[in-house]
């Protein structure tokens, strides 16, 4: 089976268009840091955005709009410019700050957190099921975003859960399999809401991965009770 290990075209388009929610957007940022192929696709799609902007039917501004703009030219910017941040993020620029590794997370030798994640505060990893630890990645720009960092023991199944929209998983180290194929470091997997899948981590090492969701997520059974305070 050939499983896709890159974000889908629609996801990359939503990323380029700026309509992808903050959680999945962060995972795509992480993927782009390591994937020149998808970076090239995003660059082409940005260009499509430019062409569509050019083709937009102009919508008249207020008559004094240009005068107001001209009057503001020499005033210093009151706000720092977020346009710059996302641009730099998309290109994998060095993040401004690094948080210490969260309690409960040990990375194998040679493995580091992707820069887009290392610049985020991650909550303490807590056990939520046998062999499964979970920490919440805090997104200052979207406190409601659910981005989870999983640390899962060899041979364990990733807990059963359901979600309303797309689910995105990014592998940091180790690997797992589902009926469609096998996934390793740098891979990004998209799963549809309809699919009730329970991926299984490789036997030869633990898997550290990130998950983000387009809709809200619900875990079944005991894990649901344990994770409720987080989600």
């Amino acid at each position: 089976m050939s499983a896709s290990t890159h974000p889908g075209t629609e996801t990359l388009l939503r990323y380029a268009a700026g309509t992808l929610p903050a959680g999945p957007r962060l995972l795509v940022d992480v993927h782009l840091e390591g994937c020149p192929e998808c970076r090239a696709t995003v660059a082409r799609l940005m260009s499509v955005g430019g062409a569509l902007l050019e083709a937009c039917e102009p919508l008249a501004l207020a008559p004094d709009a240009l005068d107001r703009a001209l009057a503001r030219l020499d005033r210093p910017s009151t706000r720092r410019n977020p346009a710059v941040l996302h641009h730099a993020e998309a290109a994998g620029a060095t993040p401004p700050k690094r948080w210490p590794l969260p309690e409960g997370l040990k990375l194998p030798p040679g493995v580091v957190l992707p820069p887009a994640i290392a610049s985020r505060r991650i909550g303490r990893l807590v056990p939520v099921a046998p062999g499964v630890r979970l920490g919440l990645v805090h997104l200052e720009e979207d406190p409601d975003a659910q981005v989870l960092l999983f640390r899962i023991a060899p041979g364990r199944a990733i807990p059963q859960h359901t979600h309303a929209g797309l689910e995105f998983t990014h592998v940091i180290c180790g690997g797992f399999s589902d009926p469609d194929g096998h996934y390793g470091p740098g891979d990004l997997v998209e799963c549809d809401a309809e699919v009730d899948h329970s991926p299984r981590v490789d036997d030869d090492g633990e898997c550290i991965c990130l998950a983000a969701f387009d809709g809200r997520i619900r875990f079944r059974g005991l894990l649901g009770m344990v994770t409720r305070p987080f989600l």
Partner: protein
Amino acid sequence: MSVQPAEPRVAASGAELSALIVAIATRADREAFGRLFRHFAPRVKSYLVRNGLSANAAEELAQETLLTVWRKAAYFDPTRAAASTWIFTIARNLSIDLKRRERYGDTYQAEAHEDEVDETSGETMLMTAEREARVRAALAKLSEEQATIVRLSFFQEKPHSQIAQELGIPLGTAKSRVRLALNRLRALLEDLK
């Protein structure tokens, strides 16, 4: 200030628009800014209204976008991106930030990387003027329905239902047509290498 009151109604070419940004960067040319503003601000407003902003918010953000162009003009590299692509990127980022502020208020300040702006874009924005032209050629090869799908996918927050409505087809059908249209777009874009 010496801004010409009326813009002669000629379609500006990509190279001319790029030259306007370069004129802003190299000599703070207010007249160039005026021309750029007249061309792009109404288009940015139109894009933002389709993107779900109110007319007022879109107007403000169109202003903000063009002011950002003025301030960041030095980072624009015409050999790497078309003016329209660069301005689209700015409008996109400002609209992401505005939607966030509408939800959560102004507590979070995005970190600015003043120095890094476009040094890093060498990698992501491998677009030359020629490639921009070919992107437009790829768009022209789409069927009318596919072009509509691509446009709505770009501009709508919930494109599937909008596409279903606009094309008069069930939601499930819309989803599969979106997939087909975007795959075709991607294949056409990949021919551009």
